[in-house]
């Protein structure tokens, strides 16, 4: 058994006749019946992008309506359905799948040195389930949409709502299984498909975060499934599971719903944190400071995240003692996130930092996620939460994390791995410009919402008191800028598919294992199964690097 040290040529050009996972077969059938995790990642990319556009349209309607205090653009019912569908589409059809199914599917097996995930057919099934569930939700939308907020509190949602709750709830139920099966696949893949020499503490941090995310997906989503099923059953049969008029307990719903939905927010953010770890390491050309702490912090967030759901219910009527326990735990769950932020910052120290688009998004993430996370402290604190709960302060808090955090990480990752996925470079100047526009537009949209929330403007309000108007106008102005920032990448990324510069094998000089394969990779990823002898992000051992 001979051991050969391979020399990888970073700038080896891509030959036209080279067979990769994209050009191996162009037929539609080969795409719709693919077992290749990379193609499945692309299928997800297309579907969730479409869903994102739909969710953004709803957001546009909301912000337009809120320019004036009166309800003049939409009537109350239409507005209520708009914000509900915005929440449902963004949470279940975009945020929860995005990074794991697009970037994770594409990159995870390669980061492990594997040919594919553990269960490729299950992976394809996950996508079909996602599409099927999305169609149900779209059907509900076309029929007129649901109202009640994405939180569906009974007895409103079960007994009083006149909208299409059942198809939408069932659609979410179905999409949940896509999430569960993807998580299951990733867990087994990470445990069983690692290349020789790739021990747990040599795994890249993106893998750690995907693993932690998958744990939550697998254990929390089934509880949502059964909760929504019971809501649909109650609505159809009229039996009072959650309705007091019929002997049920509406607070039971809230406990069951938040038992999933709080961990769900960690499903949404953990993969983003993983991407940021990869980007910070690559664009500072350094291993991540405190690697073990960051890796274990991911798992800690996943575990802790299951213990804090009651902080959504401080004014809901749960006992004071329960409130105190949940509040204390909610403060503690902030600590692992803080550890990550400090470690990323420390990684920059004595690095060699370049500012390509992915890095701009990563740095933006750190800033905005820090703000979003810190505003969580106000909500974890019992007394201030009483005032701030159900106001725009909460809306601003979670948008800082979801958009300022997650979306930026997703865009950063998409740009970072775009050459690997497509064999093309995107136009760097446009990339930087869009990142800047997104950053400015985002802050203008959501920072005023902290203020207007503290001033008392409740959320889910179709009309509002006139003293809140100035903040809403600022917010809508920001939203239009943010919209431009999001639309630009759609155009230039699509443009790059045909006219983008052909990508070198490793444009960023990354030490990641996924960059040691051709760009784009062949279907089986590696020409030979690698054997790993070092930790991840081992930039100091790379003598030269290529500036992209």
């Amino acid at each position, binding site marked *: 058994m001979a051991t050969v040290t391979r020399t990888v040529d970073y700038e080896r050009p891509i030959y036209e006749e080279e067979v990769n996972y994209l050009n191996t077969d162009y037929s539609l059938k080969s795409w719709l019946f693919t077992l290749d995790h990379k193609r499945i990642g692309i299928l997800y990319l297309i579907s969730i992008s479409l869903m994102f556009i739909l969710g953004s349209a709803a957001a546009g309607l909301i912000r337009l309506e809120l320019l004036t205090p009166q*309800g003049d653009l939409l009537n*109350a*019912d239409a507005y*209520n359905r708009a914000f509900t569908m915005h929440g449902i589409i963004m949470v279940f059809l975009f945020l929860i799948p995005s990074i794991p199914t697009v970037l994770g599917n594409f990159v995870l097996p390669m980061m492990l040195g594997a040919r594919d995930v553990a269960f490729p057919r299950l992976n394809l099934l996950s996508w079909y389930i996602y599409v099927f569930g999305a169609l149900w939700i779209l059907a509900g939308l076309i029929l007129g949409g649901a109202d*009640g907020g994405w939180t569906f*509190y009974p*007895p*409103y949602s079960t*007994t*009083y709502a006149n909208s299409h709750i059942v198809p939408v709830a069932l659609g979410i139920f179905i999409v949940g299984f896509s999430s569960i099966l993807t998580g299951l696949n990733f867990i087994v893949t990470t445990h069983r498909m690692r290349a020789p020499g790739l021990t747990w503490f040599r795994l890249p941090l993106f893998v750690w975060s995907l693993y932690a995310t998958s744990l939550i997906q697998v254990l929390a989503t089934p509880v949502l499934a059964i909760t929504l099923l019971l809501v649909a059953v109650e609505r159809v049969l009229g039996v009072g599971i959650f309705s*007091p*008029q019929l002997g049920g307990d509406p*607070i039971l719903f809230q406990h069951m719903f938040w038992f999933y939905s709080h961990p769900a927010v960690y499903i949404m953010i953990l993969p983003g944190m993983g991407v940021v770890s990869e980007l910070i390491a690559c664009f500072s*050309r*350094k291993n991540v*400071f*405190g690697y073990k702490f960051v890796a274990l912090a991911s798992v800690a967030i996943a575990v802790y995240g299951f213990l804090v759901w009651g902080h959504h219910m401080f*004014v*809901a*009527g749960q006992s*004071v003692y329960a409130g105190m326990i949940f*509040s*204390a735990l909610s*403060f*503690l769950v902030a*600590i692992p996130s803080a550890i990550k932020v400090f470690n990323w*910052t*420390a990684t*920059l120290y*004595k*690095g*060699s*930092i*370049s500012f390509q688009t992915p890095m701009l998004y990563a*740095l933006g993430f*750190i*800033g905005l996620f*820090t*703000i979003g996370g*810190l505003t969580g*402290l*106000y909500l974890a*604190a*019992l*007394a*201030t*939460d*009483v005032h701030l709960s*159900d106001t725009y302060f909460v809306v601003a808090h979670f948008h800082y994390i979801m958009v300022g955090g997650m979306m930026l990480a997703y865009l950063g990752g998409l740009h970072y791995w775009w050459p690997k996925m497509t064999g093309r470079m995107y136009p760097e100047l446009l990339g930087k410009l869009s990142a800047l526009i997104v950053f400015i537009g985002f802050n203008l949209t959501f920072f005023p919402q902290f203020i207007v929330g*503290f001033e*008392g403007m409740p959320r889910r*309000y179709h*009309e509002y*008191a006139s003293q809140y108007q100035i903040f809403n106008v600022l917010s809508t102005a920001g939203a239009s800028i943010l919209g431009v920032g999001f639309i630009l990448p759609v155009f230039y990324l699509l443009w790059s598919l045909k006219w983008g510069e052909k990508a070198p094998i490793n444009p960023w000089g990354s030490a990641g294992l996924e960059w040691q394969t051709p760009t784009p990779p062949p279907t089986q990823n590696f020409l030979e199964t690698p054997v790993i002898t070092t930790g991840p992000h081992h930039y*100091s*051992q*790379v003598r*030269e*690097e290529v*500036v992209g």
Partner: protein
Amino acid sequence: MRGASNFAGQIDLLFWFITILSALIAIGVFILIVVFATRYRRRYSGYVPPAIEGNNKLEIAWIVIPTVIALATFAWAAVVYVHMHNPPKDALTIYVVGRQWMWKAQQPTGQWENNELHVPVGKPVKLVMTSQDVIHDFFVPAFRVKQDVIPGRYTTMWFTAEKPGVYDLFCAEYCGTNHSEMIGKVYALSQQDYEAWLSGGTTTASSSGMTGSGGSQASSQSAGQQLYQSLGCASCHGQNGEGNIGPRLAGLYGSKVQLSNGQTVVADDAYIRESILNPQAKIVKGYQPIMPTFQGQVTEQDILQLIQFIKSLGNSGSQGTAQNQGGNMPAASPAAAGQSGQ
């Protein structure tokens, strides 16, 4: 927005403490990022950064210090929260019913007001609330208080208004089409003005539009008493609640009750409500489980009126006057006292 209740100062102080703390952390991180990004920007290719694994001492430090600060903040907020959940014994009790899409509040004299709440300045006010239909939320931003209003049970909150004024009241739990129109005003009046308003007279405040709609003369004691008669409560519990086949109601409110299963419970609002809607749930010791349920025959408002009436039944078993409410009432003006005997 300036706070106007006894809690506002504490909550705003906590809010600003967290703001300063957050600003320090955020600015600290931002400065470090900017400094590092500038100082360590890539100047030439070929530079190999040192492989710094980490620093365990630093890690411990930035785990322990934030944890301590976090728990201290938690404790501070928790203390205020517990205070917010312990209404003083002498608080003025006002009953609130929320329904799609309006608020109804019942003053201690018994009069109901719609989408308005009049409270005296300087006196603790306790709201006992329930919903007729879906979950709502009673939110007064200026007072920094908020509490979900849930069907099928009573939730409470309390505050002391500190400045006379008119304050926004919002529903803060999505409840359907007109959720954003389920709003109102809270009128905090000086003690004098409050009593005057209760009795329906004009005050210097009312002439300047500060009191909203005037209090009506209708007393829910009489409304409650009418219900007591029409629903047939008197046949088992006695004309004046003196008891018969059914337990004594005079002097019941707030007292301890021994149940047939050996437990002892306090006869509070929730107990009386349950006894009306689900009488079999708790049987008083020594009595037969024969009380019928009134589920479907009474609204939440009706129940509150009955509770108000039962409260008014003094120990003597005679019709209660304002004085029997043990300090909850403001000093009775002649007009108010006159309501007791319809």
